[in-house]
């Protein structure tokens, strides 16, 4: 089995993986990083979203081997204490219902705001439509993204 090194949330992890094992399962079952979720395995739902070099990537569709050497951010890594402006906004708007999809939603929102600090509704819909929410928290996701944009602006523009 190939040995690879994944740089996750700033830390290097060296592990043996089957060449076909998706990054999602390397994270969940080899590294016990269970914040990244499984829901479909075919790239339709976005629950498995991670950031690779800052861009949202569906970790069920990429093998871990292909991610060797890349900078990966998972939901566990965007702040040490849920203090990221997006997390704060998500809490203030009380976005989650069951919460299962929210890690992926937050990472997609982080990536959006990085690229577009003041997105309008159309830009939000476009960026977030890869992330399904069965409980229907979409109305709050939109509100929270706008609130996060305000927090980020107050914090000096850093998302």
């Amino acid at each position: 089995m190939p040995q690879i090194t994944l740089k996750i949330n700033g830390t290097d992890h060296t592990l043996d993986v089957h060449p076909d094992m998706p990054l999602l399962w390397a994270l969940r079952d080899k590294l016990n990083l269970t914040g990244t979720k499984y829901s479909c395995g075919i790239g339709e739902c976005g629950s498995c979203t991670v950031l690779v070099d800052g861009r949202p990537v569906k970790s069920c569709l990429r093998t871990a081997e292909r991610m060797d050497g890349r900078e990966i951010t998972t939901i566990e890594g965007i702040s040490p204490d849920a203090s990221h402006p997006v997390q704060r906004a998500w809490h203030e708007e009380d976005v989650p219902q069951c919460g299962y999809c929210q890690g992926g939603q937050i990472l997609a929102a982080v990536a959006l705001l990085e690229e577009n600090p003041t997105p309008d509704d159309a830009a939000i819909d476009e960026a977030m439509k890869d992330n399904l929410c069965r409980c229907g928290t979409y109305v709050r996701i939109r509100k929270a993204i706008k609130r996060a944009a305000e927090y980020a602006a107050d914090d000096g523009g850093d998302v």
Partner: protein
Amino acid sequence: MDRRAFLKTSLLASGALLIGVGSCAREDGFEMAEETWVPNLYVRIDPDGKITIVSKNPDAGQGVKTAFPMVVAECLEVDWKDVHVEQAPADDRYGRQALGGSRGTPDGWDDLRVAGTGALYLLMGAAAQEWDVPAAECSAASGVITHDPSGRTRTYASLLVTAATLPAPEIADLKLKSRPADFKLLGTFVPGIDNREILSGQPIYASDIRLDGMLYAVYQKCPVFGGKAKSANLDDMLKLPGVTHAFIVPGTDDYNGLQPGIAIVAETFWEANNAREQLRVDWETTHEDSSEDYAKQAATLAGGPGETQRHDGDVDAAFAEAAKIVEASYHYPFVAHATMEPMNCTALLHESGKLELWSPSQNPQNQRKLVSETLGIPEDQIHVYQPRIGGAFGRRSRLDFTVEAAAIAVEVRKPVQLLWTREDDMAHDFYRPAAWHHFKAGLDDAGRMMAFDHHFITLGMNGETVSGANLSKNHYPAGMVSNFRLRQSIIETNVPTGPWRAPGHSAYCFAYQGFFDEVAVAAGRDPLEFRLDLLENASGKLQLDPERAAGTLRVAAEKAGWGRDMKENRGLGIAFHFDHRGHVAQVAEVTMDGTRYSLDKVYAAVDIGPILNMSGAKHQVEGAVIDALSTTRLETTIAGGAAQQVNFDQHPILRIDKAPDIECNFIQSDNSPTGLGEPPFPPVAPAIANAIFAASGTRIRELPFQRSGISL
């Protein structure tokens, strides 16, 4: 532990205990420090003032883990910021711990208030005793008792030792808060208690459990419901990377329980699932049920009389006299739950025989019973934990996946996590059942509905309707129309069905409220006015409260500006319903563009009595609207005895770009609060269909909408 420090036990009507002896001695974190005082199972107050409230029901996003402690905190007069919540495992001392039927709030309302109020009573009594004053001269706020005449204060934490010596109050002596006007915390917008963990990806779901030496399993069942494995290439499985075990589980005939299948166990989930791709099984199947065949049977049955369930007056004579007859037929297919977190269960069987289970389950007591009866393990050896559930919607009331995991653990004698793929999940759901409705209404010359005949064609097994397929003979418009008949025919099915968010109601409200609209239009009457008239002039016995139902219609209509001029391609549609004790009306506003429509806004009016958590309540309404809109585009087709749509590419859940604006209007009152998980769902689809009719003249009588050529 000084047992004299514990309060006397009182048993409430539901079986809940005001106090618990030994409730602090359990291993799951509820430790008894010397001066920690536990007045009851719900509340623990530590000497440092920390308030811990135990949440006994599972939370799947319906918000009880936040709302129920809010009730206790309200009655205990403490600040929410000082409250910590612990999730209880399954423990019979808590009484019913299930999620379902929107029952959590109405069932828990009394017990929760008694817990908080009783604890405060004892604290008040302790302060009064220490000051040697009457308790009536004391008041409480923010965790502090004040002697009002003198201004002296004591924190709750400083009163624990004394309070523990007082006799428990009689429940009847407790004055329980009940009116929104008296609430300080209840009714406000409170973010969820688990938010921090959810937002930072902490391992709070059952599928996140990681135990030392844990293996992972997949369980392959026959795609045809009820099929049995005759043989399989198990030896090939054992050669594949990471695989440790592969075996046939004979299972039982209980399609709600352990079904036959092949277990493949490996060091990671992916390796187990990867091996499964090369699994070859010789299945023995007993049927080839199909949606197409059911439709043919339904068409044949429609020509027959069915079995009369109820007949008021004389429907046929009334039709003969009617000024106008309106007839229409409605249909909807099966649909899967597709919770975001697929089914899973982690099982740990100890050498001692103790079995621990972690799973997203709506009914831990039923789970324990099923595992016990199937595997012969005594119930008191089975410990069921209640991690956060990644969506329930009724699916997690069926505990098949938990007994599968337990059976696998018993065989491999190691901790094992069974995880279903999305395909497993959608191929082995307990679907919302399909049905056919044939309506006939008679109008008098004033345009009033004076006769109503309904032939309901539904699914059953052995002549009895299956789960979710039952229609009460007292459902409206029974009691609203003097000549009323309900007839029923049953199509035998092998498809497993189960409760799906507002079972029965979520589907047949689409039929009823669509047909009411057709009758109103045929009578030349406004759809709102038609419904109000039905409610206000009902002379028979009704399941719903006509005043409360009418109230919701009026509020929704007013907020939507019902009756305003709408541009040619725009329309409003209205519907109401009553289920699970809640009255709800919805108005939908749509814009048509050819055969495409956009749902611009939904105005909801909800009467469930007082609101506990304003955030949670809005969540349920917003979520139900989006869920219902989503479901207008979904179906599960059965062919060759198996479900055809097995992943999200064939089951397109709504995405954010189609989410409408949603306005929630809660009609609060001094009634007791009832639940909100289900009531806001049923009226949404018919409100949308009615709006589409108003905007375009196209009448939608079938789900999914695309069967009528209409798309979102």
